[in-house]
C-alpha cells in the first residue's frame, strides 16, 4: 500500500512537471499579453491596450484573414480529397493500395523546408509567377496526410456490412453513400479537416517560399515582427489564436464524442 502511495505521489509530481514543461511558455505569453510593459518586463500591470492595438493593426489583421482563408480552403479540400481517396482505396488490390498510400503519405516524412524550396524551384522552372493558388496547393500537399490518417482509422473500423445492408434494403449506391457511409465518416471528416486546418494555419516554411509579394500570413507576419521590433501585440494575437483553437477543439471534441457514442456500442 505505502509503496503504491509513493509511486502515486511521484507520478503526480512527474505529471505536473511535464505539464509545466509543455504549457508554462504558453501561459507566460498569455500573461504578458495583459502586461503594460512594452518590453515584456515586470512588475505586472494589467492592460488591454495590446488587444486594442491589435484590432487597429491593418497588416496583422490582413495576415490573420489570409491565414484563416488559406487554412479553411486547405482543410475543406483535404477532407474532400481524403474522403475520396479512402473510399476509392477500398476497391484497390492490397498491393496497389500500399503503393498509393506511400505516395500520399510521403510529404509527412519530407521536411517542409525542402518541400517549400523545391516547390518554389519548380514553379520558377515552369515559368510561373508566385501566387496564392500555389500557396494553397503546397498547404494541401503537406496537410493531406494528416486528414488521411484520421479518416483511414475510421474507415478501417467501418463495418462494410452496413453498406451491404443498405443495398439489401433497396437503397442505390448514392443513397447508401449519403445516408449510411457519410454519417459514419462525419466525425473523422471533422477531426481530419480540423487537423489539416491547424497544420496549414501554423505553417511557415511553405508560405514563406511560395507567398507572392504583398501578401502575408500570420506565421510570416509574426516572424517579421520579431525581426523588426517585437511588440506585445503579438502576445495578444497569440492569445486570441490559442483561445480560438481551444474553442474549435472543444466543439470538435463534443461532436466527436456524441458521434462516437452513437457509433460504437459503448456502455451497454
Amino acid at each position, binding site marked *: 500500500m505505502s509503496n503504491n502511495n509513493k509511486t502515486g505521489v511521484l507520478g503526480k509530481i512527474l505529471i505536473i512537471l511535464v505539464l509545466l514543461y509543455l504549457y508554462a511558455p504558453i501561459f507566460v505569453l498569455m500573461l504578458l499579453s495583459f502586461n503594460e510593459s512594452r518590453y515584456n518586463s515586470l512588475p505586472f500591470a494589467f492592460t488591454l491596450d495590446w488587444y486594442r492595438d491589435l484590432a487597429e493593426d491593418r497588416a496583422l489583421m490582413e495576415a490573420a484573414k489570409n491565414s484563416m482563408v488559406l487554412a479553411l480552403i486547405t482543410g475543406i479540400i483535404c477532407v474532400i480529397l481524403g474522403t475520396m481517396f479512402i473510399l476509392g482505396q477500398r476497391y484497390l488490390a492490397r498491393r496497389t493500395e500500399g503503393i498509393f498510400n506511400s505516395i500520399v503519405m510521403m510529404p509527412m516524412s519530407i521536411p517542409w523546408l525542402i518541400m517549400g524550396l523545391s516547390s518554389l524551384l519548380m514553379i520558377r522552372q515552369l515559368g510561373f509567377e508566385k501566387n496564392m493558388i500555389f500557396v494553397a496547393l503546397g498547404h494541401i500537399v503537406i496537410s493531406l496526410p494528416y486528414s488521411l490518417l484520421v479518416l483511414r482509422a475510421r474507415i478501417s473500423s467501418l*463495418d462494410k456490412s452496413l453498406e451491404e445492408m*443498405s443495398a*439489401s434494403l*433497396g437503397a442505390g449506391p448514392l443513397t447508401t453513400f449519403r*445516408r449510411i457511409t457519410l454519417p459514419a465518416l462525419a466525425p473523422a471528416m471533422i477531426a481530419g479537416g480540423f487537423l489539416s486546418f491547424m497544420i496549414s494555419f501554423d505553417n511557415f516554411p511553405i508560405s514563406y517560399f511560395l507567398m507572392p509579394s504583398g501578401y502575408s500570413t500570420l506565421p510570416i507576419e509574426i516572424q517579421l515582427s520579431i525581426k523588426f521590433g517585437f511588440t506585445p501585440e503579438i502576445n495578444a494575437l497569440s492569445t486570441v489564436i490559442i483561445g480560438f483553437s481551444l474553442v474549435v477543439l472543444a466543439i470538435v471534441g463534443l461532436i466527436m464524442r456524441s458521434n462516437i457514442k452513437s457509433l460504437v456500442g459503448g456502455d*451497454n
Partner: protein
Amino acid sequence: MARVNLKNITKVYGSNTVVDHINLDVEDGSLVSILGPSGCGKTTTLRMIAGFEIPDDGEVLFDDQPVGRVPVNKRNIGMVFQSYALFPHMTVAQNVAYGLEQHGVPKSEIPGRVMDALERVHMAEYAQRKPKQLSGGQQQRVALARALVIRPSVMLLDECLSALDKKLRVEMQSELRRLLEESKVTTFFVTHDQEEAMTLSDRIVVMHDGIIEQTGTPREVYESPRNRFVADFLGKADFFEGKLVSAGNGIVTIATENSELTLTGSTTAAPGEDVLFAVRPEHVIMNPAVGAETPVGALRGKINHIIYSGNVISSIVDCGGMMVRTEATGGSLSREPQRGEEVILSWEPDYLIQLEK
C-alpha cells in the same frame, strides 16, 4: 415469397474454387439451412443469392427468372447479418423505416408498418432508442423486423444467432421460426451450428469444400447421412471401416486392419468391397460384461474414460484399440459406468448406417 433455384453456381477466388457447381432447388416458402464448417463456401453461396457476389459460372433464379443482372437493391431480399449491422446513427424506428422509404412506400403508411413490424418482434417500446442502447438479443429482433418489414421475396440469414449466448439463442430459434413461418417467406440460413440448422429449417443442405454433400430434411440428414463427413459433422458417430467379409442374418462381418469385427446390421455391399459403417453413440447400448462370452454382433471393451455433461454421460470404450463412444441420457442408466469396467456394446440392427466409401 419466391422459388429459388441455383443452377451450377460457381465462385472462384484466384486459384481457389470456393463454390463448385452447386445445384439447389428451393420451394416457395421453405426454410433451408446451409450448414457446414467455416470455409465450406456457405456464406459465399448466400452472398451470391443476395447479389453481393456474382457467380463465375451458373445462374441464380428467383421464380424461374435469372437475377444475374439484377443488383442487390433490386432483388427484394431481406438480410440479417451476424453483426446485425443496425445503422448506428438511426433510431430503431428509423432503421426499420429505412427499407420502406427505399421501396417507395407512401410516407403516411410508414409509421404504421414500422410499429407493426416492431410489435411482431416485441420491440415496439424501444422504437426511439439507438441500437447501442439495446442488448444483443434486442438488436437481433430489430434486425429481423427491419428485414421482414419490406416483405422480401427471399430472406437470407448469415449466422444470425451466433453472437447470442446459448440460452438466448435457443429462445430466439423458436421465435425466429414462428416469425418466418408466419411471413411465409423463402428463407436461407447459413450456419455452422447443427442444432440451429435442425430446429430452424425444413431442409438442410450440408456443404463441405465448395460442394453440397447432402440435402434432406433434418431427420434424413441425421439418420441417414450419406458419407463420413455428414455423419461426423451432424452429431457424433462411431465409424467402422474395412473389407466386407460376409453379411446376413442381421450380422455384418468386416475385416479391419488387424482383426475381424462382427456388427449388428445389414448392408447392400458385396463381400470383398471396402465398406464404411457408422453408429450414433446414443444408439449404442452398454451393458456390463458377464462371463467371457461376447454375443455375436456385439463389441467387448473396457471403459477408457467417462465424460459427464449433466444430461448426457458419454463413455469412451476401448474395444481392442478401437475407441467407441456411447452416450446415455443421465436418468436412463441403472448404474454409473466405472472407468476400467469391462462392457458389452450392442445396438439395434437398424442403427447401423452404411456410408458411401
